[in-house]
């Protein structure tokens, strides 16, 4: 692999890891928000 191949691999990996973890966290937050709304709705049920 050329010098540039290693450089591109390093930056691509950085973005895959950062974007992947950000998407995971935002998905987890959205799920938690939904769970909270569901739990709140159940609490108000007679």
């Amino acid at each position, binding site marked *: *692999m050329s*010098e*540039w191949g*290693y*450089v591109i*691999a*390093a*930056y691509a*990996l*950085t973005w895959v*890891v*950062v974007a992947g*973890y*950000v998407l995971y*966290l*935002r998905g*987890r*937050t959205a799920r*938690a*928000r939904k*769970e*909270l709304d*569901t*739990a*709140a709705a*159940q*609490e108000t049920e007679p």
Partner: protein
Amino acid sequence: MSRAAEGRQVTTQPPAARWLTPLCILTLVALAGAQVLGFGISPPDRDMGHLQKIMYVHVPAAWSSFIAAFVLFIFSVLYLVRKRERHDLLAASAAEAGAVLTALTLALGSIWGRPTWGVWWTWDPRLTTTAVLMLLYVAYLALRAFTEDPERRARWSAAVGILTFLDVPIVYMSVRWRSIHQVPSSPATVDSAYALGLQVNGLAFLLLLIYLTAQRYHAARLERAAEARREEAALAHGGVHV
């Protein structure tokens, strides 16, 4: 009610934290901008050529993983002293971000090491102590995942959190122990042609760490609030049957 139980009480409706989305966009733009700047202004290194550009992601990722360990240490100590749940959640949030950044540091170091040292991995003191840091982060997260009692989980993981930070000075000093790793890169040790790019990327990664920790903390608060609501609902419905 015990002091620990008081600390475990959570807000049943955490604030929406609408600032997280703008912070996310700002972080990603800052990260991309810093990398473009690093690429644009840095000439090829005399020995490493363009491989030097890996420094702009590898070194800031390592710095951020150290800062995450420091945050973990501070909130672990605070939890042991004050028994507040938010300190436990903040410590856990910093630990998860720290684990991701340490894994990234190791992988980027491996990519940089292959063309410069000729190997993907070697049991060099710097690499080994960084791998130990990674294992400590994993141990911290595994302990949290497998301990059900919240108080015990928080107390034990705080102890592991403190231990995790103790590895950071060892990682830092390890390049002095017959290591093939170069001396730590910093704006003070690199050529002035590379210093600005390193500083800007360091700040972008610091922003990334702040965002990741804040987003993870927000998710944890929502999860705890949902759990508390479910418990309240179960108690209320149980009361009707009695």
